[in-house]
Each structure stands twice: as C-alpha cells, then as structure tokens.
C-alpha cells in the first residue's frame, strides 16, 4: 500500500518536474532578447488575439481585416483556426479575473511553453496507456526537451503547432482509452479533444486519418469487437459534427477527400458490425466464407463510391498541400508557392540527429518491442510511428509529428532495457503489462541471471547517453531555436553580442512616418509583420490563399521599373519594402528568394516573366557583371542594390555583396518611378516611396540638342539678356541651303 503511494508520489513529482523543465527550457529567447513575438505567423496570431481580447468573440468572428490582401481584404473569422486565440484569450481572461493584470502579449509569448508542459503530461498518459508508467515518464521527459518539438514552441513562438501537439497527444490518449474500454464517454471525450485540435491546427487531418486507419487495420486483422464499434462511431459522429462548427472547416468533413477515409471506415464498420451481428445470430460455419467476401465487397463498394463521387465533383479532390505529401515532386511543378516555403522542403538526415539526438537510434528497438507484444492498442503506435516517419522525411515541418512518437518509442525501449538491467525482479506492478504479453520471454530472462558487471556497464552507458541527450537538447535549443528572427544577434570578436534590430526599426518608421492608409508592397513573407508591427496595409501576406495576387507582386518585382510602376499604380501601392542582406551578410534576403518570386510570377504570367531570362549566359543565377539584362533591370535588383555601389564592404572594391560574395555588376543605379524613403542601420530593410505621376510631361529634348546651346549659368541677381526689342533684321539664314533653288 505504502509502496504504491510512494511510487505514485514519485511519478507525480517527476511529471511535475518534467513539465516545468519543458516550460523553462523554452525561455532562452525571453531571457536573451525580450518578451517578444517571434517570426512571421505568430505576428498574425498575436494581432488576431489582440483584436479578440480588445473587442469580443463575435466581433473577432466577424472581423474583416482590411489591412491584409489589399484590396481584397480577408475575413479573419472564417479563414483562421481560432483555437489558439481562444486559448490565449482565455488564459488572459482567467488571469485578469483573478487579479493578475497581464498584457495579452505576455500571455501569447508564454502560451506555447505552458502547453509544452501539458504535452509532456499527455505523452505520459498516452505511453502509460500503451506500455507502462515507466516508459511514460521517459517519454514525458524526452518530449519536454526534444529540440524537434522545441523548435516550434519556444516562448514567443505563438503558433498553432504550440498547442496542437498537446491536443494531438491528448486525443490519441483518449482514443486508446476509448477503444480499450469501449465506452461512449471516452469516445465523446476523444471527440471533444479532436474538436479542440480542429480549432487549433490544420494538422487535425492527421488524426482523422490515423484513427480510421487504426480501425481499418484492426478489421483486417480480424480484431473487431463491439468496443471498437462503439468508440469509433461515437468519436466519428460527434467529432465530425463538432468540427463542422469551426467556420474555416465548414463542410469539409463531408466534402473533401482528406476526410473520406474516416467516412469510409465508418460505413465499413457499420457493415462489419451488421454482419457480425448476423453471424452471432446465425452461428453457421459456412457463413464465414460468405462473410469475408461480403465485407470485401462492401469495402470495394465504399472505395468505388468515394472515387466516383470525387470524379463527379461532389467530393473535392485532395488539396495540393495534401497531395504533395505523397508525390514529392508535385508541389515543385504545380504549386511553386508551397515548395517556396523553406519548411516545406524535404528533411535533411542531419536534422533527425539535431532534433532528436539518440532517439532515432533507440526508437526502432521500442517499435520492435511494441510489435512483439502487440495488441489492439499497440498497433496504433506502430501505425502512428510508420506514418510520422514517412511524413517527417517529406517535409521539414512535419518533424513535429515525428517527435512525440519517437519520444514514446524511445521511452519504451529505455524502459524495457532499464527494467532488464536495473529492475528488481519483484517489481511487477510497473512492468505488469509488458510481462504479461511476453510471458515466455520473461521466463527465459529469469533463467539467465545477468552478471552485475554487465548490468552496471549498460546502465552507466545509458545514463551517460541520457546526460548527453540533455546537454545536446539544451545546446540546440539555446543556439538554434531561440532566435526571434525579428531581432537578430551576432557576436563581436570579443564574444559580446551585437543586436541587429533593423526589422523593428523599419516597421517603426513605417508606423510613424507614413499615412494611415498607406499600402506597402513587399514579398509575402513580411506581410504579417508589417500589419502586426507597422499597422499598415499589405498586398500579400503569409496566409498565401490567393496565388494570383502573390504572382502579381512577384511580377512587379521581376519587371523593369516602367512595367512595375504600371502594376503598382493598378494595385495602389504607396511604398515598396525589400529585405537586403548584402551589407551585413544576412542570407535570408529578397535577392535569394527572388527566383521563387520569378517562378510564382511565371506560373500566372508566362508571357511576361520567364525564369530563363534571369540567368546569366552561363546559366547561373548571379548578380555580378555576367548577369542577364532582365535581372539587371528588374525592380528587385534595383531596389536591393540602389546606392550599394558606393559602399565599401571589401578591402579592394566597393559594392561587394557579402551574401553572394561577388562585386555587384551594376553600381550606378538610377531610379525613375520610386525614390528611397528609408534604409535601416544595417541596410536589411529598404523602403522606397512610389512617386506620383509627374505634374508635367517630359521635357522636349530632341530638337533642342541640335541647337547650339549657351551653357551660361545664371547666377542670382545677375542681369538678364535681351536679344533686342526692335524686330531683328532679316539676318543670315542658318539653314543649310539645298542643292537646288526655287
């Protein structure tokens, strides 16, 4: 009795410690820099939350954002996953109700770390449900500090993923609980958690495909039971009904291919259940063969039905984003805007080590144990692992869904190992399940008593590895994932830090020096930041819903100044903002992104923009002397390098671009329709004002130049010259006489 008490107290303390660790290890950014919203998307989330907190929920739901996508505007309420805003707003309301007056910004900054702590707890419960409490504690500790998850949830990274992973783990835990107990209560709890996930992140599609897949696998394996029927049908019906209440999701659950798997499994489960019922009534042996045939036919009919409906256009086909998960080359060809995003690139193998350290190495062991001791619930873990691995290999950003499952598998592997080499023989309560499922195994183990020396070596090695893991995670978190990217830092030769605050400098300038309704054209990356920090209208932003509008901006940037001016006039642009890193060596600038602008523009305007024209004769993308004429005349090139030719950034030459490491090819850039309005300290942000059409038409030069012009410069107060007041005598004809006379 007391032993149980001690172990549960210990579990509680460890869990609490782990979640606090998860919280605190995400605060590097706040301590290093300040309590500030990071990156790009969080700025919109923050702005939306601020809007919601300062008005009310219904105003937020009906909020029409006129600063975004000028002149189209954006209905925020209908195009956003509101879960994040509601969560942060709720915390803010709760704290203020208690009398802790906090600003919404601080709540937003700390939302992700708080939820990381909760994720650790949810992971504990999920792992405990699937394996045992020991593995759960390991998994919780791993997920709390694994860089793969921290990368998305440091303080200030106020993004959907921050709370979505918690919802993901939680719904999986509740699902396992529901299918194991077969209770409607847990089924509905799963649906509620699923609803929260739907409201928070577009990645909910992952849940609504993974759970049906689990059910389908169980059906295939003949592990159907009424518990499964009850839990899945309650979850599916209630969950989808609730999901449809999120305005952004709307009727998608019954209309799009992404959700058809869940609907198909639902229908299949009905058939299966019906036949199972019939079988139990009839109880005939011959029935068995007919039964499987019927089920296969049903499955085939459902599949054909879904495909048919898709072909007929009743059900929307897979969206490009979803499709690109299966065909990796698809996005690059058809939707350049998706593949232009760095987080949509395929994952490099090194990032598996960076993000997970030794876990990818031990996770297969955990998977192996899981498969060996499989039951209906553990199969879920196998499916979860398999799919996460696949997706993480395709997109960097989906590393996020791999991290929890790898942590869980790693936890299981370590738990089994420690049990074997460190565990006491009579500690049956903890490894009860594992032993039950692998009884034979256990007996063998008991027979071979492991020498203490080996035990010690293994345990010490593993402990060392775990220490290494903690050190690695802290290092990666502090050095790679804690930069707000709004504020940059570089280190001086003496080791002290140099803060580069050009972005905020520029946005503050915009906020204070431009008209309230000034429209700013920039590449879409900076849209959210401009509207969030500068409070000015933007043409395109990170909610890349309108490809043709983005292509129009890309075309303006890729055109020569005259054409660009026409486009900018049409779009009503007042200022153009470009990011330039050549002076400082900041590589994430617009010249490096320029080819994507060209590609996206080419996709919509193939007659005006051609990617080939931006390469030099040698087929290289360059800004030096060998660059093509189109490149040289493009607005982007001119705006980036305007006056840069006068700057010496290199011992030998002026106009040396420190990102591309070349001397720029065109130094004497003249601007015609735009003028420089502001350039920040390190030249990272350059803002140009679009001039109004000139008051008068162009000066007439062609005839004047033929005449001999007097180049006297009139000085102030000088007397003028009159030819004469008396009509001039008919003087010498200056015209050339022709060869004939009249």
């Amino acid at each position, binding site marked *: 009795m007391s032993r149980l008490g001690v172990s549960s107290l210990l579990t509680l303390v460890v869990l609490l410690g782990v979640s606090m660790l998860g919280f605190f290890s995400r605060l590097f950014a706040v301590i290093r820099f300040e309590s500030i919203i990071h990156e790009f998307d969080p700025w919109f989330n923050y702005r939306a939350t601020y809007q919601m907190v300062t008005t009310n929920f*219904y105003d937020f*739901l*009906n909020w*029409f954002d*006129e600063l975004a996508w*000028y*002149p*189209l*505007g954006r*209905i925020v*309420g209908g195009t956003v996953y509101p879960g994040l805003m509601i969560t942060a707003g709720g915390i803010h309301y709760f704290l203020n109700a208690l009398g802790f007056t906090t600003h919404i910004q601080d709540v937003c900054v700390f939302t992700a770390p708080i939820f990381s702590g909760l994720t650790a707890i949810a992971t504990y419960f999920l792992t405990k449900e699937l394996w045992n409490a020991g593995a759960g504690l390991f998994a919780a500790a791993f997920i709390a500090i694994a860089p793969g998850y921290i990368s998305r949830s440091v303080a200030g990274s106020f993004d959907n993923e921050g709370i979505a992973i918690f919802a993901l783990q939680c719904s999986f835990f509740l699902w396992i609980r529901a299918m194991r107990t077969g209770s409607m209560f847990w089924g509905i709890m799963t649906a509620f958690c699923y609803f929260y996930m739907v409201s928070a992140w577009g990645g909910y599609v992952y849940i609504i495909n993974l759970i049906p897949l689990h059910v389908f696998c169980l059906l295939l394996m003949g592990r159907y039971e009424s518990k499964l029927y009850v839990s899945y049908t309650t979850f599916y019906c209630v969950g989808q009904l609730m999901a449809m209440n999120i305005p952004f999701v709307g009727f998608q659950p019954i209309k799009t291919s992404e959700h058809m798997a869940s609907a198909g499994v639902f229908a299949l489960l009905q058939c299966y259940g019906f036949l199972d019922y019939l079988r139990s009534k009839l109880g005939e042996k011959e029935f068995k063969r007919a039964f499987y045939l019927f089920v296969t036919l049903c499955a085939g009919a459902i599949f054909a039905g879904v495909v048919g409906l898709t072909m007929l256009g009743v059900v929307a086909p897979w969206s490009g984003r979803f499709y690109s998960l299966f065909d990796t080359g698809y996005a690059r060809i058809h939707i350049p805007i998706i593949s232009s995003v760095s987080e949509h690139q395929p994952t490099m193998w090194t990032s598996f080590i960076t993000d997970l350290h030794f876990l990818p190495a031990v996770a297969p062991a955990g998977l192996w144990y899981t498969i060996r001791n499989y039951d209906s619930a553990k199969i879920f873990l196998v499916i979860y692992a398999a799919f996460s691995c696949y997706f993480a290999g395709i997109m960097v950003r989906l590393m996020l869904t791999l991290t929890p499952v790898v942590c869980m598998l790693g936890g299981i592997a370590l738990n089994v190992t420690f049990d074997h080499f460190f565990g006491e023989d009579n500690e049956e309560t903890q490894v009860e399940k594992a032993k039950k499922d692998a009884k034979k195994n256990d007996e063998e183990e008991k027979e071979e008593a492991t020498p203490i020396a080996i035990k010690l070596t293994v345990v010490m090695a593993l402990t060392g590895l775990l220490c290494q893991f903690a050190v690695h995670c802290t290092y990666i978190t502090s050095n790679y994932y804690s930069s707000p990217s709004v504020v940059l830092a570089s280190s001086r030769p003496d080791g002290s830090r140099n803060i580069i605050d050009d972005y905020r400098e520029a946005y503050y300038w915009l906020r204070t020096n431009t008209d309230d*309704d000034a429209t700013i054209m920039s590449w879409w990356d900076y849209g959210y930041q401009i509207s969030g920090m500068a409070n000015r*209208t933007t043409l395109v932003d990170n909610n890349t819903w309108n490809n043709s509008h983005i292509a129009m901006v890309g075309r303006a940037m890729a055109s020569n100044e005259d054409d660009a001016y026409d486009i900018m006039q*049409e*779009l*009503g642009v007042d200022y153009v903002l470009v990011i330039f890193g050549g002076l400082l060596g900041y590589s994430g600038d617009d010249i490096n992104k320029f080819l994507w602008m060209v590609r996206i523009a080419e996709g919509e305007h193939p007659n005006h923009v051609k990617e080939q024209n931006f390469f030099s004769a040698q087929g290289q993308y360059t800004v030096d002397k060998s660059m093509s004429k189109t490149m040289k005349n493009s607005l982007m090139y001119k705006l980036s390098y305007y006056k840069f030719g006068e700057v010496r950034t290199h011992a030998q030459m002026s106009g040396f671009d420190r990102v591309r490491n070349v001397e720029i090819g065109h130094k004497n850039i003249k601007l015609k329709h735009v003028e420089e309005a502001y350039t920040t300290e390190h030249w990272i942000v350059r803002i140009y004002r679009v001039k*109004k*059409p*000139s*008051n*008068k*038409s*162009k*000066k*007439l*030069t062609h*005839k*004047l130049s033929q005449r001999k*012009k*007097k180049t*006297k410069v*009139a*000085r*102030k*107060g*000088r*007397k*003028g*010259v*009159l*030819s*004469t*007041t008396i*009509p*001039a005598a*008919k*003087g010498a*004809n*200056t*015209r*050339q*006489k*022709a060869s004939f*006379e*009249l």
Partner: protein
Amino acid sequence: MIIHSLLFAAAFAAKAKMLVVLENERQKNEYATVLNQLNEKFETYYKLADDADLHLVKYGKNLYQNAIIMAPSTEEFGGDVKTKTFVDFTQNGGNLMVFASSNIGDAIRELGAEFGIEYDETGTKVMSHQLYDFERDALNHDHSRFQLKASESFLGGSQPIVGPAGYAGLLIDNAVAMKIDKKNTLAFPIVKCNSYCYSWFPNEPITEYPMAVGRDITLVAGIQLRNNARIAFFSSMSMFSNKLIRQKFITYWNNDKNEHAREQNSVNKFSMHVFGWATNNSGTFRIAVFKHNLVDKENQRNDFYYINEEIEVTAIVQEHVEDNWEPASLLFENLWLDFHRLDPFVRMQFENQGGGKFTAKFKVPDTYGVFNFIVWQTKLGHTYLEHKEQITVRPPRHDMYERFIASAYPYYFSSFSMMLGVTLMSFAILYHRDVSPAKKNN
C-alpha cells in the same frame, strides 16, 4: 479682435498677385488695353525681363499666383529666374502665360521645350496667303499679318477656355510657329492655323520643308499640369497691341469685300477669356463636399458597408468665381463615379440636382473587399476633378443571415422527429417486456 477681423477682411478682399514681365517700359503703353484688363482683376507687379531683381519663387514659395511673360526676345532672364524656376513656380501651383514672337529668344524657347512646346527658328514667321494685309504687303512677300476665322481655327466644343461666345476671328501678327510635342498629353491647341498657313523666313525662297505647315501650326496652346496649374503659350505678342486690337478686318480681305468682313477683330474678347482661364478664373471647380451613406439614413454608419446594401453618394461641386467659391454653374453638366476594387464594379453618372449638387444611388456589389469611391474627371478646360475615398465592404455578420429559412423546414422536422423517435424507442425498449411463454400458454 478688431484687428483680427480687419486682417481677415483685408485678406479676403486681396486680389491675386500677378507678375508682368516686360521687355521695356514702352510696352506698358503699347499693350495698355490688355494690361488694363489685368490691372483691374489682379494686383499687378511690373518687372523687366533683364531686371536683376526678378524673382518668381523665394524660399520654395511662389511670390505671385500668376505670371505673364511678355518678353519674347529674352535670351536670359535677370535675377535668379531660369527655366527651372518656371518649373518650380508651376509645381507650386502658379499659373503662367508666355508670349513668343518671331524674334523669340532662347529663354522663351527653352521654357517652351520644358513644357513640351517647340518653336520654329528665330526669324521665321507664320504666313498666310489667304487673308493677309493687302495694303501693307502689296509689294513684299511678308504675309505675316493675316486674319484667321474663328470658325475654322478656334478650339471647339463647350469649354470654358475660349467660351461659347461668337467670335469673328483673330488678327495674327509676327507669330512664330509653335508645335505641340505629340507625347505631351497635357497640352492642347487653343488656336490653330488654317490649312493656308506655313512657317518660313519672309521674302526668302523655301528650300526645304518648313517646320510646320497648315493645321500643324499652333498659335495659342494651353497646358493644364496634373496639379491644375495652368499655362498658356501665345505665339504672337504684337497681335495684342493696342494698334492691332483696334484694327478691323476689312483690309485683310484679299478682294471680296462683303459685309461679313467688316467685323471687329475679336482679340480683346479672346484675350479676356483665355487670360481668365489661364489665371484660374473660369473652368475651375472643386468637390467641396463628398459624402456617402445608406439610402435615406444619413446619420447612420458610413465607415463601412455590407455587401448588397443600397447606398447614396452626394457630391457638391463648386466653381471659382472672382475669388469666391460658388455652386457650379450649368456649364458643369455631369460627374461620373467609379466604385472600384482593382476594377470598377460600378461606373455610373451622378444625377445633377442643380446648384452644383450631384447624387448617385447604387447597390454595393456582392463582393467584399476594400473599395474606393473614385471621381476622376478630366474635361477639356476644367480643373481635373479627383476624389478618392476608401471604404470597406464587408460580408454580413454571422447573425445577419435569415434565421429560419422555409426550404430548411424538412430538415428541422427530420431532426426533431428523430429526437422524438429515439425517445419513444428508448421507452419502448426499456419498458417493454416480452410476453412470457407461460402467460402465452395460458
């Protein structure tokens, strides 16, 4: 308080300032008729073109609202006045009238070039063999004083520049040919030559194609810059002299001396009109009031509209008359409105309510976004009327849709009937007991 109101009154009564640049003092007498017209309407300042103290712009501000340059032979202006000064002057909104002549100097030529007007060479004159001064030019071949009929050379249409009044014609004298650059979209001819004219050195054989002939030759050109500053270029100065203003046309008919030819030269009236236009005293309008609201709900919200709402736009146009703004006259007939979001979704004409009031009623399109009310009217001789006002068109709020729609009643019925059915079924299952076999047997 009294001083303040006095100052105010003084400012109110003050006439617009006009600088008159002359070549010499003698011209004050020679051009007294025209100059007196100006003296009446403006506070005039006389300066000579070569005056060392000639200034137009000081510290970035215009010293005068209008300037009239009656010094065609100027090679170089005195003071700090250069071609660029005139550009600055007009950029600041100053109006300019420039006179040329066949003895045109470089300064005037460059000034013309700056605004897209090209002059023929110094010494050339515009000549016509049709209606020239028969007595004066009987012996020589200088037909540079000739009559031009208004009907064939004046700017037509209803416009405030020369006005609609019946003119007989003009007596042109010693004019230098003027051509408007084709690329110059802001300039337009006010008086053109007829097809008998050409430009060449008088009494000299024509050895090559003249710079301009016939209707290519512009004699009076107008320019309205995008900031509504107005410029008038005259190719002849002496035609405005006292002597020629008084001249009758009779001698200029070659042989046919009928009654029609006895008409008075209309240069006096013409100059009054054109000077009036060029100094912003005619054809100057502004949109004094521009407001929009829901139809018949003037005091309700007008900072945004929902789609498909009926709205009403009111614009009040005023005209500049003798230093006052008054309701636009009937000359200002119509006004167009665009409701624009990348493309015009609505393009319609305002209804003229009289007294300069214009109203337009329309239904907001079924498309949300950031729209602009755009009035952009460029009518010849009128101020460019430009007004742009941004307005947001929103989709309806979530609670603005119809709550219960008739076509949904089957669905309401089905859901409620199902709830009822479930309840009844539950009762039936829970409280129904099969008749036991024993009882059955009984």
